[in-house]
């Protein structure tokens, strides 16, 4: 055999092996679909009211409606566009309409979507549906979710086709991505940890899919493990690290304060903002106190990273401008010394949302203002005005830098260029 022939054969063999490996990695931990092959053996368990109620609770825990409901549309009927760096995906219809929703899905097929990231037709699903998290959900919870979704009123509404660029729109690219970054597997309890910690881990890592925002993503869109903070793709908000005391770590908080933040959106004189506001409003405010305490115990115990400190803080140009803008527009609520007013206006001195690195969140808050979420426990939140129209980029940069460097705050200054970039972002 000639050398060329040998080389070609070896190359071919390597290619076949690679495809086989990607294939094998894509069908790991898949069980046969009993419902399809043997109808008689289909898990009978007729859904009962209790199971449906539990499914509704779990759907809240997963905040399914946040993506699977279009603005102003029917709950869970899908159609909302999710912008990603690879294109726009449209969330599916989860109501039991046979033509456009989950009406023809069996419990096995639903389980396979959650656990293996595979659609009813066998196609690989895009991980914007966070099945890398939902794979940790156990079968009994998946069945409850299924029972709940099947109990919804059917809505006939087909989701628009995804608008992804090549090659992200191919199954082959997805298969390679999954081979690299997706490992199916239900959450396993850690014997050395408490029951509450394990319950917390199950909720935070599974349905809660907290790391979808609170972890950086690599250039292929895969989330890093842990909750070390990350910029949320396309949204222009930074989800702070939950393992860094300079960011949003709660290691030093009382358990009750963490539960209160989840329940009401407010704690320690400050409130959630941006995308976390949607999480509290749509998800955590509905969770039971024991579940919230479990999540809090887990988050309190996260291994802590060394704090990310700003590089040397240089004296900034325009310091006087910052002080002037602050005196004119901010001091009447947040106070001359940035101390705020308890229960009404958050303090800015020592406020981690103000001093976060990167500083994009404080710019978004100044630009668009905002209300804390209206929750059952905190139904009439106060709102901060947007300053996008009243202040220029230079003025916003100056005042943001000012509050980041006063009253003991020592964060980096921000530039007008960063303000201009933050202006271009819209959440929805």
């Amino acid at each position: 055999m000639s050398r060329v022939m040998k080389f070609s054969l070896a190359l071919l063999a390597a290619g076949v092996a690679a495809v086989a490996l990607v294939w094998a990695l894509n069908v790991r931990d898949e069980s046969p679909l009993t419902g399809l092959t043997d109808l008689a053996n289909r898990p009978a368990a007729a859904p009962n009211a209790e199971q449906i109620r539990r499914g509704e609770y779990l759907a809240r825990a997963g905040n399914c409606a946040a993506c699977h409901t279009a603005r102003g549309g029917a709950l869970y009927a899908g159609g909302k566009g999710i912008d990603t760096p690879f294109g726009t995906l449209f969330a599916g219809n989860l109501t039991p309409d046979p033509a456009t929703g989950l009406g023809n899905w069996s419990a096995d097929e639903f389980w396979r979507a959650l656990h293996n990231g595979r659609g009813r037709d066998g196609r690989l699903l895009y991980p914007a549906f966070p099945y890398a998290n939902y794979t940790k959900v156990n079968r009994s919870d998946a069945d409850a979710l299924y029972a709940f979704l099947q109990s919804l009123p059917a809505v006939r509404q087909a989701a628009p086709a995804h608008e992804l660029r090549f090659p992200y729109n191919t199954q082959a690219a997805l298969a390679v991505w999954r081979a690299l970054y997706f490992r199916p597997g239900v959450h396993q309890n850690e014997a050395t940890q408490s029951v509450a910690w394990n319950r917390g881990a199950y909720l935070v890592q599974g349905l809660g899919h907290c790391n979808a925002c609170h972890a950086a993503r690599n250039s292929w869109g895969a989330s890093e493990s842990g909750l070390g903070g990350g910029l949320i793709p396309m949204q222009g908000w930074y989800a702070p690290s939950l393992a860094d005391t300079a960011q949003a770590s709660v290691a030093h908080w009382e358990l009750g304060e963490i539960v209160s933040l989840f329940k009401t959106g407010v704690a320690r004189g400050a409130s959630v903002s941006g995308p976390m506001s949607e999480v509290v409003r749509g998800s955590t405010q509905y969770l039971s106190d024991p579940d919230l305490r479990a999540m809090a115990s887990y988050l309190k115990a996260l291994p802590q990273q060394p704090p990310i400190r700003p590089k040397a803080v240089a004296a900034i140009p325009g310091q006087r401008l910052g002080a002037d803008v602050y005196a004119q527009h901010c001091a009447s609520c947040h106070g001359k010394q940035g101390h705020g007013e308890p229960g009404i206006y958050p303090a800015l001195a020592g406020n981690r949302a103000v001093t976060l690195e990167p500083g994009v969140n404080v710019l978004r808050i100044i630009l668009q203002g905002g209300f804390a979420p209206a929750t059952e426990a905190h139904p009439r939140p106060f709102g901060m005005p947007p300053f996008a129209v009243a202040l220029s980029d230079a003025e916003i940069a100056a005042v943001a830098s000012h509050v980041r460097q006063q009253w003991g705050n020592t964060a980096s200054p921000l530039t007008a260029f960063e303000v201009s970039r933050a202006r271009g972002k819209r959440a929805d």
Partner: protein
Amino acid sequence: MAQRVQACTTCHGKQGRAAPDGYYPRIAGKPAGYLYNQLLNFRDGRRHYGLMDELVAPLSDAYLREIAEHFAALDLPYAAPPPGNASPAQLRRGQDLALHGDATLKLPACVQCHGAKLTGLAPSVPGLLGLPRDYLNGQMGAWKSGQRRAHAPDCMGDIAKALSLDDIAAVSQWLAAQPLPAASKAVSELPVPLPLSCGGVPQAAMGKP
């Protein structure tokens, strides 16, 4: 309550009066049902304005209603209309449309729904006076293009689609140039029923059985 809604008054002016920048509409004293419907429209994607969309997104129906009622209850004087730059012909056409409509275009007059003095019909039809010309133009244009919608049936959408851009400009110019009458509050009934069926307007207010 005023302290809770400072987020609104930076743009809409102190206590919800129109700010002098020529775009943001006054919200003080508008009918509560109208304001509430608009807050829902922004939250649910029937109207679009980035800052409004984001502000109302985390709020509940109950709280939005309370905010609407707060601003509706304000009774503040109106400033005189700013000087306009409309031609006499444009103002004549605008006045014709507002007071008499256009039978050939099958357009009702503004006064048939918004009240004889154009101060609105409680609780859901807004007054049309005291608003900036650019805001009126912007809203009619948005309705015409489908960017702004109301609860179905969207009667204003149908009207704006039937209007030419010149007619929109004319009626906006004329409306923006009119002073408020002494009784500036919305009326509670019309002499004859509304000529159209409008979503978000209670049946009783339309004057129908």
